[in-house]
């Protein structure tokens, strides 16, 4: 860290706020979650657009001011609409369906398998080596 602060004046900072590593990691994660409003389907962490610069700086500024991740997301969502969030909100019917569907599908699939299998108690063991390799 001491090396960094010694050399920092030489680099003209494009990043508006210098954050400690933990805050920086949070900021980076948030920047991957927030969609650039000027580009197609790119998070602000990747975008070269000027507005993405501003949006990145806004994330840094809010984190430097002690905002929580949820507060940063809410700020962007209020300002630019829900579409800027790559981590969709779980509220509403759409959100509920989106977030519950993976587990629901897994459980439903498991239930179907169990029902389909039905009564299969007469299974006998066969060593895999007899069958695994075609050479055998």
């Amino acid at each position, binding site marked *: 860290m001491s090396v960094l602060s010694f050399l920092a004046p030489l680099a003209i900072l*494009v990043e508006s706020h210098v954050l400690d590593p933990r805050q920086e990691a949070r900021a980076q994660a948030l920047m991957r979650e927030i969609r650039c409003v000027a580009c197609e389907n790119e998070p602000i962490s990747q975008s070269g657009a000027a507005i993405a610069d501003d949006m990145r700086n806004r994330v840094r500024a809010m984190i430097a001011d002690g905002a929580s991740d949820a507060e940063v997301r809410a700020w962007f969502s209020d300002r630019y609409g829900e579409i800027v969030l790559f981590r969709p909100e779980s509220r509403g019917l759409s959100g509920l369906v989106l977030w519950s569907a993976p587990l629901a599908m897994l459980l439903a699939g498991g239930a179907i398998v169990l029902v389909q299998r039905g009564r299969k108690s007469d299974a006998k063991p066969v060593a895999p080596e007899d069958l695994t390799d*075609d050479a055998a």
Partner: protein
Amino acid sequence: MIEIGHLAAFLAFGFSIAQGWTGLSGDREAAGRLALSAFAAMAIAFAALVLAFARSDFSVELVAEHSSTLKPFIYKLAGTWGNHEGSMAMWCLVTLGFGAAGAAWLRTDRQVFEARAIGVQGLLGVGALAYLLFASSPFLRLDAPPLQGSGLNPLLQDPALAAHPPMLYLGYVGYSFVFALAAAGLMEARIDRDWAKIVRPWAMAAWVPLTLGIALGSYWAYYELGWGGWWFWDPVENASFMPWLVGSALLHSIIVTEKRGGFAAWTALLAVLTFCFSILGAFLVRSGVLTSVHAFAVDPLRGGLLLTGLIVYGGAALALFAWRAPALKGGPAWALVSREGALMLNNLVIAAATATVLLGTLFPLIAEAAGRQMSVGEPYFNLTFAPMMAALLAFLPVVQGWSWGKADAGALLRWIGGFAVLFLAMRLLAGVLREFPAGAALGVALGYWLIFGALVEVGRRGLWEWRAVGPSLRRCLRLPRRVWGMTLAHAGVGVFILGAVVETTARETRTVGLAAGGSAVVAGWTLTLEGVRAIEGPNWYADEARLIAAKGDRQVVLEPQKRFYPAARMPTTETAIHRTGTGDLYAAFGDRREVDGEPVWTFSVYYNPWIDMVFGGVVLIALGGVFSWVPRRRRVDAPVREAATT
């Protein structure tokens, strides 16, 4: 010249119709000859197209739009498939190629089955060719040819991306023949051990290039786009990932069909669905219903036609499936704790994971229909897809030694205990060393767990099983190729996960602005900007920065470029990457600014630890596929085996 190609494509169209007709009526010999003829004709058509690109014949509309004399020769050739029409021509070529390969190499004692498979492949060729000839013809001339073409997308002027579409299409379209074999098997309601033995090599022949094709695309995105990442859960990436997932499920399910005659209906369904997902992928990419950074050649009408094709072929196959599936015979009974049970779990989770990717990819459209503007990106998949797959993979070392029918569950608890210990160790170690969060530590533990599990499996089979012969390393090396294939692929998944988790968790990113002589520190490396100079290439000019990166007594030069292609009026970034052995120091050139009248250049600098393991892991996975491609045929089938399954 191009007219000869156009004519040849029509000829291929005619041959394919005849191939479909004779094949479905059961004439193996005629269908085979027609398949070879169709492929030969299509090869001529494709060659004519490549020739037009090689000679920069701008009287051909496609060449005028997508090529330029200023382009290096090799990218002129690659330009053939770097656009919608040309890539559809490649789709046709591969479809007919697989038909011809089937005609040449399918040698079973089931003539009618073979004929029908070749016939169905012919019908798939008819659809692809109709789409090519009537909706996206690459063979059209211009009345007034321009003197210079308008160039290819400069992002595509790259070796990895030149090889990416052929690989991807071998995979995507390779599954068309698996589809045809499934349809032929369903027609006679015979999806049995014989069928699986015939089909498995074909499924592998599509899966290996698809794996490599996805990896190439990802590698390209990593070093060319300058974003430091390698997978973005972008709709276009998902479109290629879904067929891969279903294809992977198929490779596991077909083992049960091959060895036990079980899962017959499910295997047939997967064989059909994999190709459906390939067409769906083409539809998603080409129709423009989803916006993506990778998409090119977006056109709603063409999208509609692709969707129609998907509905016609997919619908027909599913109807056939619904009609015939009840007549398929199942395998012998199996307990939940058995090899069948383990492979069922594999298929269940992969199916749910694929459905999740599909849902996440399409959800913005669904939400929009419901009046809500939503985006679904990386965080969603990291929170849904990743844990599902991780849970499945955690079982892998435990269950891979289970026997068919019924296995001993007792060992399960010991293994779970082993994993828990490993996880705690990783949690502790990662926490101390790198401040990893719990999820990442779990991922690291999982990676080591899979590699360890693969080694144990080889050891178990090679050293401990055949005690009669005595333990020896030689026995390990003499294990069947398929066992090595499985081991390599599973270890590859472990290597990939290690790389992926460490890279995404510990990657360091900084955006810095440097004046000449200025420096900045990233991940312990001090980068000093010596200067920026203008350079010129064959069809581009660029600003090239010279950054000196130093760490301790090591010193390297990074020369990232910002290129401009005048023919396409488009800038690109050429990243500079220094491979340290344990990670990449990666610099991408940003823009130029004025600060107090002085020029300042911005750079995105990344340190990506363990990144080689991401791509290396995928290569191992593909290599595993190559090893288990075709079974060794040295020994004659043991009679015991037949007795065990009848």
